[in-house]
């Protein structure tokens, strides 16, 4: 089983990378874009197929290691 963790900077936190990406998009003439935010995705391989039984442990991993709750939010999803 695979889990996918998406980590994004919180909405109220400045994202300098996102700002730079927007500037670059505007430089190639695409004015339709007015904001961008840069995060990261971590794919985790897990033994077994029971998502609910491993969810608490994965939440802990997301909270303590993969994201920093001061500046980031995460979303945990499972793929079968």
């Amino acid at each position, binding site marked *: 089983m695979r889990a996918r963790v998406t980590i994004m900077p919180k909405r109220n936190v400045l994202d300098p990378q996102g700002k730079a990406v927007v500037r670059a998009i505007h430089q190639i003439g695409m004015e339709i874009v007015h904001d961008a935010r840069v995060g990261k995705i971590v794919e985790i391989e897990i033994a077994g197929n029971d998502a609910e039984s491993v969810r608490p442990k994965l939440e802990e991993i997301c909270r303590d290691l993969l994201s*920093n709750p001061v500046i980031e939010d995460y979303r945990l999803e499972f793929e079968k």
Partner: protein
Amino acid sequence: MNGGRAAPDAESRAPRETFPLMRFGVIRFPGSNCDQDCLHAAGAVMGQEAFYLWHKETDLRGADCVILPGGFSYGDYLRCGAIARFAPIMAPIRRFAAEGGLVLGICNGFQILLEAGLLPGAMLRNASLRFQCQMTRLRVERGSIGPFASAARTGELLRIPIAHGEGNYYADAATLAELNRNGQVLFRYCDERGRVASEANPNGASENIAGITNRAGNVLGMMPHPERACEAALGAEDGRLIFESILEWIRARRISSAA
């Protein structure tokens, strides 16, 4: 130190000490790169006993002060300091800090202390998106007191360099208010006249914050590198004030515990 800014000569300084030398433990993570500078500053320059502690060790070997040096621990993977936080050496550091031991995190060391929750807040990428390597001026916000700034006066300006890509200190409004209320902000970036202005902010840090302590005052995290500013030959000596404060603090503590 008795003589203030004497020549950096460990051999000649040592016998003048009335107390056993202070022990500085410099942590080495894979990717630390300011460890030698810290060892040199605490050892050769300040004339104390300085030694390395490998990240896999579980004992601080009697250190009076632990330094987490700058660098790119674990390649800065995931987030700066995020992986170092779980190194075996961090468990004894937590206990040491809880017991009032002195912990100094510089640059990446500051990032590690934030990730470890030993200091509040987090670090963002510099607002400029550039790696900033330059001399900065710091205003001492709380001098003449505490383990890290007793040798400096409140309002004194220090010249200490920075070198980082992620030194944009961030904390929410409530945390900033608490830091200010408790006097935990030790250094702010300022201009030549001591004004805490946005033009003097090299990385976009909230309220120009360059260094903070924990509530008890025994854990300091700072982005500027005092260990690179301890000798005139290197262009700046103000970093010595921080080391001198540490020595003063430990000496006072030894006197009071002996009495």
